[in-house]
């Protein structure tokens, strides 16, 4: 994964732990009983504080401090913090170690930063997250940009989510890109994109090559589009009917 210079710098800072940010909350964080109530503190800007509400009680104090530092760095980079907080909470729910949680949040921050470059100005927070996941799934920035180009800002989330999912079904990245972009270009094609995802996911369970077969069939049945795209060619298993003798 390639990163911009600024991101590398930031990561270097993050890697060396950020005691400066941590110290500010050392007082309130030492007591394990006390909740971190972000809005209480006098800190960067109230607005920025607003963004970084998270239940620090779910983490040990060291991890909570480190995380808060990461979140603030994300704000500095102009990245949304909600996805990072969500990931941290997920890690805590899964009983992951503080180290692993911090590592995952750092990596997501870097991916969000790269996604921001690839997706460009005006992209929504959901789009940035979806783009970050697509990058982590192995697509390159060029691909993410290509998907972005098919839709107005804010409306590329479904396309990016579907693109990401195709990777786990063994669809080659280039093929997935072509399939998603060609469908996403069509008007009101979110339904069709989700249909593609479902068709491929269902067929991927059946064996090698099945996912790609399903993708090709689906794309063939969908393009060229017209208002009111038809249902995917791969349907659910047909219901059992009495046999026609």
């Amino acid at each position: 994964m390639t990163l911009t210079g600024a991101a590398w710098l930031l990561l270097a800072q993050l890697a060396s732990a950020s005691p400066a940010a941590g110290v500010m909350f050392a007082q309130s964080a030492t007591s394990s009983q006390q909740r971190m109530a972000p809005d209480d503190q006098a800190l960067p800007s109230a607005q920025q504080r607003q963004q970084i509400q998270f239940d620090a009680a779910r983490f040990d104090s060291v991890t909570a401090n480190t995380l808060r530092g990461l979140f603030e760095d994300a704000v500095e980079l102009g990245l949304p913090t909600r996805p990072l907080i969500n990931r941290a909470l997920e890690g805590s729910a899964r009983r992951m170690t503080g180290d692993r949680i911090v590592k995952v949040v750092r990596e997501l921050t870097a991916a969000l930063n790269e996604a921001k470059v690839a997706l460009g100005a005006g992209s929504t927070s959901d789009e940035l997250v979806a783009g970050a996941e697509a990058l982590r799934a192995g697509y390159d920035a060029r691909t993410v940009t290509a998907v972005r180009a098919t839709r107005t800002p804010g409306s590329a989330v479904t396309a990016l989510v579907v693109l990401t999912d195709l990777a786990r079904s063994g669809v080659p990245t280039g093929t997935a890109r072509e399939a998603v972009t060609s469908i996403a270009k069509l008007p009101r094609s979110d339904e069709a994109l989700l249909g593609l995802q479902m068709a491929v996911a269902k067929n991927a369970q059946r064996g090698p090559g099945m996912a790609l077969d399903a993708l090709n069939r689906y794309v063939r049945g969908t393009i060229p589009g017209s208002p009111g795209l038809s249902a995917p060619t791969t349907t659910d298993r047909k219901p059992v009917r009495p046999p026609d003798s």
Partner: protein
Amino acid sequence: MTDAELVVRTRTGDPEAFGTLVSRYYDACWRFAYHMLGERADAEDVVQESFLRAYLAIARYDERDQFRGWLFRILTNQCRNALTSRGRRTRRFVQDDIALETAPAAPPGPATSVEDAALIRALGQLDPAQREALLLKYAEGLEYSEMSAMTGAGESALKMRVKRGSERLRALLGRSIEDIPPGSMRSPGEPST
């Protein structure tokens, strides 16, 4: 164990007997379905559907008949159904500026085999009734009387389908591969030129 014996056991609810029947005829069914439909996954679907129908209807099967023939009657029906419903949904592929792999030939990966992709594509351009008749006659080796009983069509109509289908297939295969536009699978509603 003969087919008849397996059928009797299947009727009493013996799953292994049915499994043996499936293993005996799966190959043949699948090859036919694959040539009829042009795609592995569709062929698998249709074959499974056919075996399901056979299982549910096995009470009505007369052991004096050939199991294979009875099964193939169900199979040809299912193939026809699959093509009809596919025809309702499939749009004619228009070459996009983005190249997509659309040929029904073997996908890349471990499942790849050396198969006659040009033939499968050419078969796909035939009228489905002609395709079916060709396969039943030349690949399955049926008599016209048997085909008539199986499909419900008259023998002379079947002979005509085989003749026309064969002519068209020869014409299609006579051209070089590049002349055949990729992905131009014909749907049943469209007339064959």
